[in-house]
């Protein structure tokens, strides 16, 4: 009994600044302390989302991630420390949350969200945060939340832009499929590793996802259901627009749904999205014949032998500035989404050959392959 009094006193002290808020108070804090929230993804969005939920006192916090912490994550995935590089993201994130608040339950799920486990994971919590980084997981998680009737705080960030909305809330709240019934093709989906992302951008969106989760589980405020918040960080502009209601006939969330508790596990998300459940590169192109291509090792040998050759680097100028093969010329082939895996260079070689430059060759695998196979000192980025 005495220990219970001590615990309560400590909780009141910890959450006092929230409890004194007239709009929040004891009642909302008690609801928050009794709520369970699942954060899917412990990356740029999940870092602030999980930390703020833990600090604010959500009773049970689940964190799903199957990746390991990489050095290139640290500029935005602020939940992980340098010491965590190489370790499980879910474990690193859970440890950071426990360090902030030891009075809550934190559950690390070191697995990938998959059709086979999504429903069970989602059903174990009251609300879900989509902090993932790929279309496969976004459709899967939205479907699972539609089937399990769990509100989903969906955030996304890329470059200097961010989006935020709440799916599957109440009677008229749409799901991801209501807005995007057909998945975009993988080449239309920018990835942080190619397009870049400025650290604070997912920080802002992830923090807002935590705010929406707090609102939804406590019933305080007006959640961003049927609204989309758009952030343009470069312009310093944030504005909210009106979205459609749940779509009649939606395959995931309407009365006529074909994606159900029984069928979700066998739904082919890879076929639907044309992508895998990670933010890996789209498959490498094979536009050229083998004779029109050169391995990184063969190119290195020819350069070392002093052979007369012009190495043309077709990546965007800023990527050339990060690192390039000594002596190479920067001639950016600037279309749509850049990549560093030797797809653009094949397009350029095909163009050159069509235009009479028959000696043009492509280096297989681009600069990533060069770094892996020909020059270990070349920085990976």
């Amino acid at each position, binding site marked *: 009994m005495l220990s219970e009094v001590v615990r309560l006193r400590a909780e009141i002290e910890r959450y006092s600044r929230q409890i004194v808020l007239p709009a929040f108070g004891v009642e909302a804090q008690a609801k928050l302390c009794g709520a369970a929230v699942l954060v899917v*993804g412990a*990356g*740029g*969005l*999940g870092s602030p989302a999980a930390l703020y939920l833990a600090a604010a006192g959500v009773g049970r916090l689940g964190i799903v991630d199957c990746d390991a912490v990489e050095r290139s994550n640290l500029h935005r995935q602020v939940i992980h420390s340098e010491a965590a590089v190489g370790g499980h993201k879910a474990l690193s994130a859970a440890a950071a949350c426990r360090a902030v608040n030891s009075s809550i339950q934190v559950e690390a799920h070191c697995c990938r969200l998959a059709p086979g486990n999504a429903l069970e994971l989602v059903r174990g919590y009251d609300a879900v945060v989509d*902090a*993932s*980084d*790929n*279309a496969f997981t*976004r459709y899967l998680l939205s479907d699972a939340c539609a089937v399990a009737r769990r509100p989903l705080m969906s*955030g*996304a*960030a*890329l*470059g200097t*832009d*961010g*989006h935020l909305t709440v799916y599957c809330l109440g009677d008229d709240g749409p799901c991801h499929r209501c*807005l*995007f*019934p*057909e*998945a*975009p*093709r993988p*080449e*239309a*989906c*920018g*990835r*942080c590793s190619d*397009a870049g*992302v400025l650290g604070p951008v*997912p920080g802002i969106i992830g923090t807002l996802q935590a705010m929406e989760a707090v609102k939804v589980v406590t019933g305080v405020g007006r959640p961003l259901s049927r609204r*989309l918040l*758009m952030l*343009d960080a470069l312009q310093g502009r944030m*504005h909210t*627009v*009106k*979205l*459609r209601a749940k779509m009649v006939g939606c395959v995931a969330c309407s009365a006529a749904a074909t994606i159900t508790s029984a069928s979700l596990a066998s739904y082919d998300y890879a076929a639907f999205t044309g992508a895998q459940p990670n*933010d890996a590169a789209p498959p490498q192109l094979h536009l050229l014949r083998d004779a029109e291509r050169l391995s990184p090792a063969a190119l290195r040998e020819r350069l070392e032998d002093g052979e007369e050759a012009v190495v043309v680097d077709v990546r965007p100028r800023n990527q050339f500035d990060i690192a390039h093969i000594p002596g190479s010329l920067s001639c950016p082939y600037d*279309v*749509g*989404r850049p990549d560093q895996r030797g797809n653009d260079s094949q397009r350029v070689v095909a163009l050159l050959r069509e235009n009479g430059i028959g000696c043009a060759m492509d280096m297989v695998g681009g600069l990533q392959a060069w770094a892996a196979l020909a020059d270990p000192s070349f920085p990976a980025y």
Partner: protein
Amino acid sequence: MAARVKIELSGGLEIIFGNAKEYTAQVPSGASGKVTVLDVMLYARDHLLTERPELFMKGNSVRPGILVLVNDVDWELTGELQTEVADGDSVVFISTLHGG
């Protein structure tokens, strides 16, 4: 007939529109005699798009993954391609983001 419309691109779509996020254009009316979002979309494709039209349109509409807003409202609520636009209206094409 024509309408002076603000056309905005976001979510990375600006990359194929000469890296500009905002244009103001005098959009001529289509077959109906009225200016609709369809006319705005076709104008954007023919006059503002600089590369890779397949990342903007599919068939007779925008490609999957693009959300269209007319005066800050989801076009599904306003009449999609047939939504009429007038002087001073804004049409926003947003590519949905998946990064995190």
